[in-house]
Each structure stands twice: as structure tokens, then as C-alpha cells.
């Protein structure tokens, strides 16, 4: 089984061998094992398939496998049947016998399991024809739908580690570096610093011992792209890191994964182990004389550890406190040695660039932002999931063409990008192309790729308050502007949402925002004001409504709303009374129900339960 591959030629022959082995499978049933699908029961679906295949003695022709996240979490569990790429969505274990009987044996489709286009009402056979996928450009995620993340052979069979072989044997470290520089790849973790330039800083720093780190501490709430990469195709990250180490001259690498992602930790560890067994990691990689090793470090639950210097402190065994830069990690990083940190997605892009060339990569995207970017499209949107798009695509295309618009037929209000460092972008700016510069101009930022869609039922002050609350808990607490400034901004925002806002609060928040931006020590504090400043900028009228009229237009802030029942719409069904936890809603048959304002705790359950829209919030 395990074998040491000691030259590029051997790697090629082995790849052919693996491909040949795979040919014996007439059909492959790929069940999505992503977090979304597994919560919808994809493990049970997989077991049902395995059982059924065995029962009908098909196991020598049909392979059932669990893959990484397919991205279309909304319709989980997603199952794709190769070679035809028939895509079944929301599949349940009960459906399995029928799928086997019809699709696998008779080669027919099970219509009701196909994705149904909500507009045309047509059933769609293949995944790449579903609008959600059709508008994407999947490069980092290209193999997620059919690779078994626990199998290095699977990765090798699709050309895995060929980029490594090419870099080690056909290119000098300098050439690799130039290629990455020319590609225009920029850090996918948020700030968008040119990757090639970063590598060069580290390479040029004096010292024989250098480190590289893969930042898998994906802490932005609303983002799970890196998780999907690590859980779906961990070898692509490992390969990228080895190539990077070769270019930079690093001897040791660390993958820092947040502890909330146990499967990512497990698969990354497994991938490293397998790469070792194959001689793709460790001493004398592929017989090239280059040696490099990787270790996994688990985070322990601190958002601020996504910041480079805090992450380094954490690996060193300390409290994850950021420290001032300069010196930059490229000069003095882990244990004082030159260190290069990139995030998961950045590393996963590297093999693509080496394989297909910088020019190819640079042909995708805009003048300043090259390649594709993954986003997690979540919130009040129809098609939630992971998407990968060429940079320069507009927000509107992502939200409407791929995301299928706002759920529940409600009106779009804002999209939040960049996590707690980002801002909220309103409707009239949806035609902005997505790249690093444009998003920053709007007062938001690219961030790691969380994209949270909000509808008219979202209160923007509540959102700003939410982020301040998040950041006040996640701030390391070292510097005054961040620790106290965020806390006071939270106080002010809380007052506003409770109807205690004062006229001067908006300008005070703006002033505080500037101080945070200018005065904080690290990136967390310096960008912390974005959620507040951007909502003031684009939704000032909402702030004013809260402060001047003591009203929450979105009907969210409890202190500013009252619930009542529209007597004409009420059908006296009694549903509201049934769900009301405080018995505030009550009534008799054939008479309109009433809500006792004294008892009402404004939980909103009655409004959600009313089928006739009779519960009014004002």
C-alpha cells in the first residue's frame, strides 16, 4: 500500500496506476460529507447506499464514497452519481433503494430528487446546470465534489502533487517565487497583501531557520470556506505549503486550525501522515534533496488568533496577544525566526498557479485582484452555501444569480462582508464588483469571505451592536482603544436600541470609530469600527429613527416595538395563543385575538406562527 515515491517519474507512474485502478468502478456515488449535509443526515444516506450496494452485490462495480463539501448546503444532503454527474438533492435514506434500482441498475433518473428550478419549475439533471453552480468558477473547490478527503490516492489521481514535482525539479525557488508574484495572488485571509511579495520578504530575511504557517483559524462569524477546503481537499493545502516552503527556504511548517473544526484537524493530520508515507513530506522530498515537515496545532478558541502575531504567540504557547509590527513576522516571527503566514485558501491556490502558470491565473479576475475567491453565502438567502467566483463579479450576481435572491420573498436590505472587520453594503451599491479595493472603498472589506445577506427584517443598529458585542468579547484586551473603545461603543449602541439614545450619540460613535481606526494596536481594533461606521454611513436614517422617534423600523429592538393583532386579518385560529410563552396572546373562538401588552415579552413567536399576517409590529 504505502510506498515511498522517490522521483517525479515514479509519481507519474503511480498516478497512472491509481487512475487505472479507479477505472474498474463503473459508477461512483459521491455523498457530500460537509458539515451542512452531515447535519441533514448524509452519513445515514451513505450507510444506506453502502448497504444497498452490498445487498445487490454491486460492490465490485459501484463505489460509494463520502466527499468534502459540495457547497450547496441549502439542499443537503447532496449526492452526485458519476460518470453522468446526476445530482440528487435533499436525499434521504428512504430514497436510496429507489436510486439504486432506477439510476444505478436501470440508468434512469429519479425525477423527484433532482433540483427544481424555482423560476422555470424545471428539474435539472446535472450539477453544473443548476444556477447555483453554473455561475461559479470553481478552482480551489474543483475537486471537492468527487474526492475522498481521506485518500491521498484520490488526490494523486486528479493530478495531485504534480505541481510539487514540477516546482522541485523544473524550477528554482526563485522561479517559483516569480511565478507566484506574476500571478498576482493576494492573501485570501482578508487584507489582500500580495502573496509573492510576502514570500520574498521572508526569503530575503537573514537566517537559515525559517517557518511557514497555514492560518486555519477561520474565526469570522459567518465564514466556513477554509473549513470546507480543509475538510474537502486537505492535500491541496499541504501541497501548496511544501511549494511555498521550497520557494521561501523554510524547513518547518505549522497548520493552525481552530478547535471548533475537529474534522479539519483530523483530515489535515491524516493528510500529513499520508504525505509522509509517500515521501512527499519529510526528508528528501521526492528525492529532490529538499526537506520539509508540517505539524498541526489546534487553536483553543480565540478569534484574535487569526491575527498573525497573536497566532504566532499562540503557537509559542502563550496568550494570543498581538504585538506591534514592525518587526514583521517575515523578519522576526515564530521564536524570533523569519516566518511567513498565509491562510488556507491562499495556500490551496498555489498548486493551481504552478500547474497552470501565472498567466493563466492572472487572466481571471480584475486588474488588481486576480483569481477566484470563495465565499460563504449565508443569512436570509435562498441558496445558502459555499461559492467560488472570479474576482470582479458583482455582488448582485452573487446574491441573485447564484444565491437565488432573498428567502421568503422579502426585500433585500444589506450584505455584510468581511466579518467583524467588514461593513454592511446597501442595495444601491450591489453592482459594485467584488475585489479588495472596491470593498474597502465602501467601508467594508474582503475579509476571509463571509457574506451575510440581510433582509428588511434586520435592524442595522442591532447588527452593529451585535458586532461590537462579539468584538468586546473577542478583543484580547491589550490596548485601550480596542478594549475600552469597543466596550463604550457597545454601551452607546445598546442605549440606542433600548430607546435611550441621545442626539450626540451618532457623532460620538463616529469619533470613537476614528480613534479605533487610528489608535489601535492590531488589525482587529483598527477595523473594528467598520460595522458601526458603515451602518451609520448607509443607514443613518435608521439610527435617527431609533434616537429621535424611538422607533425600530425593522421591528427588532424590543424596547421600541409593540405587538398587536390586526382584527380584520385575524381568523381566530388560536395559533398565537398556543405558542405564546407568557400567555399574553389570548382570545375566544370567532372573535379576534388580543395581545396583553403587559404580559408580552416581545419574543415574536406569534408573528412567526401567524399564517394570516395578522400580528403587527409597530
Amino acid at each position, binding site marked *: 500500500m504505502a510506498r515511498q515515491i522517490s522521483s517525479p517519474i515514479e509519481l507519474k507512474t503511480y498516478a497512472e496506476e491509481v487512475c487505472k485502478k479507479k477505472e474498474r468502478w463503473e459508477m461512483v456515488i459521491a455523498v457530500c460529507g460537509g458539515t451542512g449535509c452531515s447535519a441533514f443526515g448524509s452519513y445515514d444516506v451513505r450507510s444506506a447506499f453502502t448497504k444497498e450496494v452490498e445487498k445487490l452485490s454491486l460492490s465490485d462495480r459501484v463505489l460509494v464514497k463520502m466527499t468534502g463539501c459540495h457547497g450547496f448546503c441549502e439542499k443537503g444532503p447532496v449526492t452526485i452519481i458519476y460518470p453522468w454527474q446526476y445530482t440528487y438533492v435533499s436525499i434521504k435514506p428512504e430514497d436510496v433503494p429507489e436510486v439504486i434500482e432506477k439510476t444505478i441498475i436501470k440508468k434512469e433518473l429519479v425525477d423527484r430528487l433532482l433540483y427544481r428550478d424555482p423560476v422555470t419549475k424545471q428539474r435539472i439533471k446535472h450539477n453544473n446546470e443548476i444556477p447555483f453552480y453554473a455561475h461559479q468558477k470553481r478552482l480551489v473547490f474543483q475537486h471537492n465534489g468527487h474526492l475522498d478527503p481521506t485518500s491521498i490516492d484520490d488526490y494523486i489521481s486528479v493530478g495531485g502533487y504534480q505541481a510539487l514535482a514540477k516546482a522541485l525539479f523544473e524550477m528554482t525557488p526563485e522561479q517559483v517565487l516569480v511565478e507566484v508574484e506574476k500571478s498576482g495572488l493576494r492573501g485570501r485571509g482578508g487584507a489582500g497583501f500580495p502573496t509573492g511579495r510576502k514570500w520574498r520578504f521572508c526569503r530575503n530575511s537573514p537566517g537559515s531557520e525559517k517557518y511557514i504557517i497555514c492560518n486555519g483559524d477561520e474565526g469570522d462569524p459567518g465564514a466556513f470556506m477554509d473549513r470546507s477546503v480543509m475538510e474537502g481537499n486537505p492535500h491541496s493545502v499541504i501541497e501548496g505549503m511544501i511549494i511555498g516552503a521550497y520557494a521561501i527556504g523554510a524547513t518547518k511548517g505549522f497548520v493552525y486550525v481552530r478547535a471548533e473544526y475537529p474534522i479539519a484537524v483530523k483530515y489535515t493530520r491524516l493528510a500529513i501522515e499520508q504525505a509522509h508515507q509517500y515521501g512527499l513530506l519529510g526528508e528528501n522530498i521526492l528525492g529532490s534533496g529538499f526537506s520539509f515537515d508540517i505539524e498541526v496545532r489546534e487553536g483553543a478558541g480565540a478569534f484574535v488568533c487569526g491575527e498573525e502575531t497573536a497566532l504566532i504567540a499562540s503557537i509559542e504557547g502563550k496568550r494570543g496577544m498581538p504585538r506591534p509590527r514592525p518587526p514583521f513576522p517575515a523578519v522576526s516571527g515564530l521564536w524570533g525566526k523569519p516566518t511567513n503566514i498565509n491562510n488556507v485558501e491562499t495556500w490551496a491556490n498555489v498548486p493551481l498557479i504552478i500547474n497552470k502558470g501565472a498567466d493563466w491565473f492572472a487572466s481571471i479576475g480584475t486588474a488588481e485582484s486576480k483569481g477566484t475567491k470563495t465565499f460563504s453565502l449565508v443569512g436570509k438567502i435562498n441558496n445558502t452555501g459555499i461559492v467560488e467566483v472570479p474576482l470582479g463579479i458583482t455582488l448582485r450576481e452573487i446574491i441573485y444569480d447564484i444565491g437565488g435572491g432573498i428567502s421568503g420573498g422579502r426585500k433585500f436590505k444589506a450584505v455584510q462582508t468581511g466579518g467583524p472587520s467588514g461593513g454592511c453594503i446597501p442595495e444601491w451599491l450591489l453592482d459594485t464588483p467584488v475585489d479588495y479595493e472596491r470593498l474597502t472603498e465602501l467601508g467594508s472589506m474582503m475579509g476571509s469571505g463571509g457574506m451575510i445577506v440581510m433582509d428588511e427584517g434586520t435592524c442595522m443598529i442591532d447588527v452593529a451592536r*451585535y458586532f461590537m458585542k462579539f468584538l468586546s468579547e473577542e478583543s484580547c484586551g491589550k490596548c485601550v482603544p480596542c478594549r475600552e473603545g469597543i466596550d463604550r461603543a457597545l454601551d452607546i449602541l445598546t442605549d440606542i436600541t433600548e430607546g435611550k439614545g441621545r442626539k450626540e450619540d451618532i457623532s460620538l460613535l463616529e469619533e470613537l470609530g476614528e480613534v479605533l481606526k487610528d489608535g489601535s494596536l492590531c488589525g482587529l481594533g483598527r477595523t473594528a469600527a467598520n460595522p458601526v461606521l458603515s451602518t451609520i454611513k448607509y443607514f443613518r436614517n435608521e439610527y435617527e429613527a431609533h434616537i429621535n422617534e424611538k422607533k425600530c423600523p425593522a421591528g427588532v429592538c424590543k424596547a421600541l416595538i409593540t405587538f398587536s393583532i390586526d382584527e380584520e386579518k385575524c381568523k381566530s385560529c388560536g395559533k398565537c395563543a398556543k405558542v405564546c410563552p407568557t400567555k399574553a396572546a389570548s382570545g375566544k373562538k370567532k372573535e379576534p385575538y388580543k395581545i396583553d401588552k403587559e404580559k408580552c415579552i416581545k419574543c415574536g413567536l406569534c408573528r412567526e406562527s401567524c399564517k394570516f399576517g395578522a400580528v403587527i409590529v409597530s
Partner: protein
Amino acid sequence: MATGIVREVDLKALEKIFRGFEGKGESILIPLVQAIQAEYGFLPKEALVKASHHFRIPLSRFYGVVTFYAQFYLTPRGKHTIRCCRGTACHVRGAAKVIETVEQELGLKEGETSEDLSFSFETVACLGACALAPVVVLDERYYGQMNPEKVRVLVRQYKGASIQESSIGEENNGKAD
């Protein structure tokens, strides 16, 4: 002082853990503490004091690290851990109400453990399962698209189960409609 009285047997386990971390400098601190927590389910004070002596790292360093990261616990954990996500996606889809409901059902505030050690309740900055928002994780199992109603049923199921397991006569709580 009252928390975390270590039984004699535990110390043996500790020595075994220490062996894996000898001679590697202070960078072992977090993996070491993680290993201790994996063994005991939380971080008994005595274990940290012992580790501090063994590795000659000031106890304040341990204490500082342990209180900095959200994943470390200095008090024993409940049998079941229920974690509610308060990430952005969950927030805009109504996580606050889900959290409120759990608080009501368990009579616990976030970060607390029930006195009989049956439940620990915590909220998490983001579980990274945003497509399922709002998400609740109960003992490693993800439950997606929660609402107050659904989470109430879920909690009551577990409550019922844990009461049955500890073979106390009073049940009925488990019957959720």
C-alpha cells in the same frame, strides 16, 4: 479550592501525559493543557500546579493561557454540552431567541453548568456551519435551522433521557409535543 479534587489514580495519568512533552520548551503549554483537559474533561487545579512544577513554568503562565482561550475549563463539565452558535448568520436568522429558549429550558446562563452536572451550556462565536443557521450543537451533533420550538423539543428530549439514565423516578419532562 473546592473545585476539582483529583483522585489518586488521576496523577498517574498525568505523568503519562507529561512524558509526551518532555524537553520541548514552553511552546508545549497549549498542547499540554489540551491533553490534560482531554483526560479529565476539565482542568483540575492540582493538575495545573503539578504541571507547573514539573515543567518549571510559572503557574501564572498556565493560568493566563487557560483563562485566555474559550476552550479551557477550570470547573467540571456537564454530561451533555449544548452549544449555541451566535455567529452573524445565526444572529440574523434568530439565534438570540434560540439561546433565550435554551436558557429558560435549562435554567442556566451561558457558560454555566447545572449543579447535578447533567448539562453545560455555552455559546460559541461561530461554529462554522453557517448554512444551517441557527445552529445548535449537542454533544458533537449538529442541529440546523433551529427555532425556539425545535430547540425546546431537543433540550427536553435530552433532559428526559438524562433523568431516565440516572434512574430517578420523576420523568415526564422527556415528553415533548
